[in-house]
């Protein structure tokens, strides 16, 4: 069996053949669905459009003759995508404790608000006089974010968390260059999200690792040791990716500032502390906020996200364009660096103004919860994670000992030692039990990591069942009933997929001269 860097098996093992085969290959509600290219054809369409007039074209002699795209009628399209949807796990269907991803409930009111014609059907380049309400909405969102974080400025436009990281680090780089103080190194703890070192590197910095101490947090001493005149800043996630609050954060921030560096906080886990502490009070200079995590805009199968960045007084002038300004009752956009009076924006990160569709959903979430509801949500998220920890601590193992966690609890694979069961097996067996697996093999510094984030959206009853099921799986592994885990999943739409093969012989598209591969 092949393994990747994190010690995770990547090839298929075992088989899920259970029961008798059906004639169609379907399994009741699980219906095999071919690719659209195998069922549609280029002459068919599910959209009725008027007959063109037949005007002489003005395409400059570059007219297209054929494309090769299949079309389907509406009933065929409905069936295709409904069948596909039935092969997906979703928060609406069950526990989705994907650590660090914050799979909380997605309120449908937020979807409804995003589809109001005055929100969903306005163009980013309409005259400003026709979009005053949209600018007011952005301005309101900005004000809520600033109040919640205790920061001085905000850039709404970053399109996702990693885009926000770039935004924050770009502001840091620009601020230092403006002082004539070019620096070359960024400190990143080993447990950080991979986006942190990737972002630093994209901006031309080299990355210096900071090791965690035994309890899983970063010590001020380690930071001081790594600091120097070449260090531009630190990228620190708080609460960190082990689910722990960096309790020495203020001392760390002070040390960073004393060295003339800035403190970038990865706000991926801000959801644990909304209403409990403000990053501005912790010495943070900039932080991105994943609206799709903390403020529940839907994850949508992997995006779109939205990653506004909040800034301290020191960095706020360097925030990118565009931004909204208010003069009495009139809102306007500052869209270019030249027009940014009194500010020194580092530039522009995207066309237009950011993820408006996500802004309105996040604001609807914030307004619905209010300051009291958001604090309650943070408390419930932390309570739920600790409740899971309490329910499993005697039987599973924690890499840094049993200590209070924030919104997520981290286990390692020590408890599976000598059972022949891996973290991957354990995760796949959870699928059979009707749960989405937790985040596995992250953070990379923990062997066989299992990061569980239940969020505040789970009821006690749902957590009780989850805990009981994980206890049962652990028992099975320890008692040698391992086939249940090593061959899992047995009841999912598919058995384990061969990831090694996919990477070695990449097939990234359907093509007519390579017919679909049936069973081998």
């Amino acid at each position, binding site marked *: 069996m092949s393994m990747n860097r994190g010690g995770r098996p990547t090839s298929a093992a075992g088989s899920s053949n259970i029961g008798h085969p059906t004639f169609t290959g379907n399994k009741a509600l699980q219906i095999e669905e071919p690719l659209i290219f195998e069922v549609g054809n280029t002459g068919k369409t599910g959209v009725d459009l008027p007959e063109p007039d037949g005007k002489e074209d003005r395409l400059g002699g570059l007219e297209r003759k054929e494309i090769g795209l299949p079309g389907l009628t509406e009933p065929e399209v409905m069936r295709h995508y409904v069948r596909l949807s039935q092969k997906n796990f979703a928060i609406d269907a069950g526990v989705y404790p994907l650590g660090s991803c914050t*799979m909380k409930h997605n309120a449908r009111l937020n979807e409804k608000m995003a589809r109001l014609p005055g929100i969903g059907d306005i163009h980013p*380049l309409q005259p400003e*006089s026709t979009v005053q309400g949209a600018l007011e909405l952005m301005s309101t969102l900005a004000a809520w974010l600033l109040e919640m974080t205790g920061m001085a400025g905000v850039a709404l436009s970053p399109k996702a968390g990693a885009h926000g990281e770039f935004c924050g680090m770009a502001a840091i780089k620009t601020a230092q260059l403006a002082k004539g103080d070019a620096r070359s190194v960024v400190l990143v703890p080993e447990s950080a999200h991979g986006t942190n070192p990737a972002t630093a590197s994209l901006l031309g910095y080299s990355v210096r690792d900071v090791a965690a101490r035994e309890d899983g947090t970063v010590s001020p001493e380690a930071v001081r040791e790594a600091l120097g005149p070449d260090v531009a800043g630190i990228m620190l996630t708080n609460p960190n990716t082990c689910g722990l609050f960096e309790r020495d954060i203020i001392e760390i921030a002070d040390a960073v500032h004393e060295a003339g560096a800035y403190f970038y906080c990865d706000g991926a886990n801000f959801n644990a502390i909304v209403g409990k502490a403000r990053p501005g009070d912790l010495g943070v200079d900039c932080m991105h906020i994943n609206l799709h995590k903390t403020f529940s805009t839907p994850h949508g199968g992997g995006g779109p996200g939205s990653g506004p960045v909040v800034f301290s007084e020191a960095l706020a002038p360097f925030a990118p364009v565009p931004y909204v300004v208010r003069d009495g009752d009139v809102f306007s956009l500052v869209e270019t660096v030249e027009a940014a009076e009194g500010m020194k924006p580092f530039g522009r990160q995207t*066309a*237009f103004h950011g993820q408006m569709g996500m802004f309105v959903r996040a604001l609807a979430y914030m307004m619905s919860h209010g300051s009291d509801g958001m604090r309650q949500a943070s408390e419930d998220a932390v309570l739920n994670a600790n409740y899971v920890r309490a329910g499993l601590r005697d039987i599973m193992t924690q890499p840094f000992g049993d200590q209070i966690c924030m919104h997520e609890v981290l286990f390692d694979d020590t408890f599976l030692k000598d059972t022949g069961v891996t973290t991957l097996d354990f995760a796949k067996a959870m699928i059979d039990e009707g749960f989405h697996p937790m985040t596995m093999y992250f953070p990379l510094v923990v062997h066989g990591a299992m990061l569980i984030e239940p969020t505040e959206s789970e009821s006690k009853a749902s957590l009780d069942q989850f805990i009981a099921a994980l206890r049962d799986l652990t028992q099975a592994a320890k008692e040698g009933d391992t086939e249940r885990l090593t061959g899992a999943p047995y009841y999912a739409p598919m058995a*384990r997929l061969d990831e090694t093969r996919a990477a070695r012989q990449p097939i990234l598209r359907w093509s007519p001269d390579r017919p679909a591969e049936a069973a081998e």
Partner: protein
Amino acid sequence: MRYLPLSDADRKAMLSSVGVGSIDDLFADIPEEVRLTELIDLPRKAGEMDVERQLGAMAAKNTAASAVPFFVGCGAYKHHIPASVDHLIQRSEFLTAYTPYQPEVSQGTLQYLFEFQTQMALLTGMEVANASMYDGSTGCGEAVLMAHRVTRRSKAVLSGGLHPQYRDVVHTLCRLTEEPVETLPPDPTGSEDIIAAIDEDTACVVVQTPDVFGRIRDLAPIAAAAHEKGALLVAVVTEIVSLGALKPPGEMGADIVVAEGQSIGVGLSFGGPYVGLLATREKYIRQMPGRVCGETVDADGKRGFVLTLSTREQHIRREKATSNICTNSGLCALAFTIHLSLLGEAGLMRLARINHENAIALADALESVDGVELLTTAFFNEFTIRVPGKAADILESLVEKGVLGGVPASRLAPDQDGLEDLIIVAATEVNTAEDRHAYAKALKEVLS
């Protein structure tokens, strides 16, 4: 609070199971001096009705594109979206799933991404495509960085026909990564000689077609010149419907195609979320940024799909990754692929044809207004007119007459000369003969 299932009794029981006396014991690691004791100074929780009222009031202050004769484009376009698209993307299994990290329970997402990648490759005339980018402009920046990796050169040459905000994105990225960029001046009349700007240091030349002024560009000679110097051609398409009528960049020699996919299936939404498309040659796939889905088999030998080539990505490669991207634009890619499955080749080509004919009819109607000059001869659904006066003021006067007539070219690039009297005008299938008539009539009144 309607979204929080725990009752006070649950909380009490759970705290006791955890072995702490109060909720604040769980937050004890937050230094006491910064721990908040009071609620943040923001409004308290609100019911659905209340939130709807507040946000509805803001929405009501905006003019929706469907409410008026609407001709605003420049990288985002008002198209009709079939009702089934929005229904399907709101299915819980698509809307509330995440990145398909567990392929056994994510085949729905993975299969549509594989189909999406195939559609993209066919549409652009390229060999492979990724599973989408944040949007067209960020995709354009990533394409330039990818060209650096492929050619091991650093200079990017940007056409003056490139959307100025795309240009700004590339400039920002290159300035911060300390790579050189050369940008040609805006070129509303089509006199640009970009070939002359390509030299032995050039990593890529970035050309948009139709360009920001609406002009269709033949990329073949530019591709040939770039290749001769060992540079790549990055083709940018901001109106993806144009590929239903125009020869695709892949057939004209492009090495990387980036596009904004909003026009198919994704609403205007004031600029985002949209869906970026990135397609390239097979030989460059390991230099490609972003998420990719690939075909494989499961333990029973059944065809299935997984995220693949992840050794390029940040969660494995960290500081050596091809980019820092961690998400795609999944749900918008789904909307795109559903709409395109409905259209098919026949529907897309007809849709493109109608767009083109509506633009021709509009160009004729506006050109007949005294003082208006049509600058674009070969165009798809967007063109540029010169008006006697300041374009922004004229457009504002048109608003008063209930017409949203386009984008003043100077808004996008206030630093550039010679754009003050230019309006970039878009027409799509949603515009009727009455809309065109209303525009021409209003413009005539404003100019007289």
